[in-house]
């Protein structure tokens, strides 16, 4: 464990400790000398002082005391006394053993003391981290995490200053005495993407990362261990992350609610329209059925019927699109043979295509693909409706189906006007209608956006190619997913 700043003692403090120990030595020496203690007894007493110094102050103080103790032993107890001369060589051995003994004992005891102190220190740091994480857990998730975090950090670590830079919200929060300029240290740490510990300024900087991405930085002035600072940065990252995900969730929820409301309103509107439409249709078609009208009256009644039917179709489509837009599309997939599906749609739609003949070109490959038949039919219906809308009268619509082992390509071509380059992407956007079409052809601008959504749900995509000469062709391509686990085809 690295020695934190608290271990740095001033020289004065050291001297004071030595003085206390020396005083203890002097008192012991006076007692032992006046009572004529033998060398061994005096040695043990000195050893006691050295061990106590080691336990209480540390190894260096203990070493120092042990040297003085050896001096005293030599001067007062080893003959000739009151001199540092040692007459008997055996006494050298005694002195040397004392010194070694004192050093070893003081080393062991000071280590013991250090371990105990480190454990204590760690416990305190852990408690602080725990307090910090608990504080983060009860953060108010509606408010940005920065201000709450600086306050909590400063309180927990009794730091002088704490500054946090939040890169997402672009805000700098600070608690303490730092001037506005000094606070910028957090922003600089983020910009430089640098972790740093500066013992002289007692300042620690950490970049806050979510995964590998830096999202902010933290700067603390105070006694904070570098490892603890790392842990603090991780906890700060968690606080950031929680705030972000909560915000995202809240946003998604409000979006869902808005969407639900929109669908409910559309649904109610469309249904509210259907009742009067039914009455209008019944009444106008009833008039025609009676057969009592003259030619003009029949014409007028027909007009009412026609328009009511048109209005109804619009309602129906709005309702369908609202439903498709409402939620993420859930596919009800089943094996679909594209050629049959296309023929079915074409035969269903033929009467509504305003006299445009449909030219089918199908490369038969009657292997089924996995898809949602309703959505696929909807895509083709939309393409055909569009083609009929934009084609010049009686121009043919060409429908082409091409298949490979892995892919389906479907295209619907009409002789309609050019779709300009800048509009080709955007016609698939919701409510977008090209400026050329807006005035000429009725429409809502929703149909193709739904087509795109349906195609994407099938992992396919849609695009349009258009030219003055060759007309406009809408495409759908989609992968043929493997038909797995379905019942064998019972064709007989």
């Amino acid at each position, binding site marked *: 464990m690295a020695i934190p700043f608290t271990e740095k003692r001033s020289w004065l403090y050291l001297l004071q400790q030595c003085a206390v120990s020396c005083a203890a030595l002097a008192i012991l020496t006076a007692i032992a000398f006046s009572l004529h203690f033998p060398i061994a007894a005096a040695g043990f007493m000195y050893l006691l002082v050295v061990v106590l110094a080691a336990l209480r102050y540390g190894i260096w103080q203990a070493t120092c005391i042990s040297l003085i103790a050896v001096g005293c032993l030599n001067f007062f107890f080893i003959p000739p006394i009151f001199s540092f001369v040692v007459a008997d060589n055996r006494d050298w051995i005694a002195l040397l053993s004392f010194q070694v003994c004192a050093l070893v004992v003081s080393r062991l005891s000071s280590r013991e003391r250090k371990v105990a102190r480190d454990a204590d220190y760690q416990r305190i740091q852990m408690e602080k981290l725990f307090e910090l994480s608990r504080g983060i857990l009860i953060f108010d998730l509606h408010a940005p995490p920065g201000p709450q975090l600086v306050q909590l950090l400063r309180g927990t670590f009794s730091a002088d200053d704490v500054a946090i830079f939040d890169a997402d919200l672009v805000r700098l929060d600070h608690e303490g005495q730092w001037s506005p300029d000094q606070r910028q240290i957090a922003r600089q740490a983020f910009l430089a993407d640098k972790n740093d510990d500066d013992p002289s300024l007692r300042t620690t900087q950490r970049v806050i990362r979510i995964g590998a991405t830096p999202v902010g930085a933290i700067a603390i002035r105070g006694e904070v261990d570098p490892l603890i600072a790392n842990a603090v940065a991780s906890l700060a990252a968690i606080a950031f992350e929680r705030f972000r995900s909560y915000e995202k969730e809240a946003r998604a929820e409000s979006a869902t609610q808005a969407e639900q409301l929109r669908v409910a309103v559309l649904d109610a509107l469309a249904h509210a329209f259907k009742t009067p439409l039914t*009455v209008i249709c*019944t009444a106008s078609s009833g008039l025609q059925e009676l057969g009592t009208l003259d030619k003009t009256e029949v014409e007028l009644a027909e007009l009412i019927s026609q328009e009511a039917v048109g209005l109804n179709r619009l309602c129906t489509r709005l309702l369908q699109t609202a439903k498709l837009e409402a939620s993420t599309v859930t596919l009800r997939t089943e094996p679909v043979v594209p050629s049959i599906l296309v023929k079915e749609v074409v*035969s*269903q739609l033929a009467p509504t295509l305003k006299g445009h003949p449909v030219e089918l070109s199908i490369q038969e490959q*009657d292997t089924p693909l996995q898809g949602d038949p309703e959505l696929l039919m909807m895509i083709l219906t939309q393409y055909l409706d569009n083609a009929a809308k934009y084609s010049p009268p009686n121009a043919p619509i060409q429908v082409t189906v091409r298949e490979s082992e892995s892919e389906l390509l479907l295209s619907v071509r009409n002789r309609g006007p050019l779709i300009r380059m800048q509009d080709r992407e955007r016609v698939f956007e919701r409510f977008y209608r090209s400026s050329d079409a807006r005035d000429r052809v009725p429409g809502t601008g929703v149909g193709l956006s739904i087509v795109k959504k349906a195609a994407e749900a099938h992992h396919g995509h849609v695009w349009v190619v258009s030219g003055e000469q060759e007309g406009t062709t809408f495409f759908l391509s989609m992968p043929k997913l493997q038909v797995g686990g379905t019942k064998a085809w019972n064709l007989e």
Partner: protein
Amino acid sequence: MESGVILVVDDEMSIRRALHTTLEKLGFKVVEAARGEEALSLVRTNPFDAVLLDINMPGMNGIETCKSMRRLFPRIPILMLTVRDSEDDKVEALDAGADDYITKPFQLRELTARIRAAMRWTRAAAPSPDEAAAVLRVGDIELDPVRRTVKKASRPVHLTPKEFELTHQLMSYAGRPIPHSRLLNSVWGPEYGGELEYLRTFMHQLRRKLEDDPANPQYLLTDAHVGYRFVEKLDR
């Protein structure tokens, strides 16, 4: 002029009024009910030739009313009026025992045609064994259930056994829509019901064999998302 007594059940006053006026003018006698419960008690006490029943009603809805009515009178013709475009509703209506459905808004001509057809089915007595064996004829198509042969314009058409079953089923209920699941059930067996692709494939084959122009079918009609219907009689 038409004839018959029709019960119109709809919670919307304007729709009842429009139907009342127009149908009466065409010769039907019309009785109105605004709620399912009211309709049920009327049906118990008065004879009706057909019932027009709205699906969406407050209180007892159309589906429940239809089920109860069917239990009381197995042979009364019931036509459901649906407003939703949800196909599930239509299938549910047919499963509840309705003979047919018609989507609002509708043309009066279509409505009267459906009413007439429904009344005809039920006026005919329950099929006796003789009738079950009788040859079915619609337009140019002729199906002999005993010999298991199908002819088109007097020329035999070769059908596989499954294709024959399918045609037989559809022709026996000519004019009425049969939901996909019911067709699959009765032709393939009770464990089938959701395999629409089988049906599409077979209908495709059948149209190739029976229709003049398979892309514009005259006999084998698709009721979008609901099922298929064999035309009751050919307009020519």
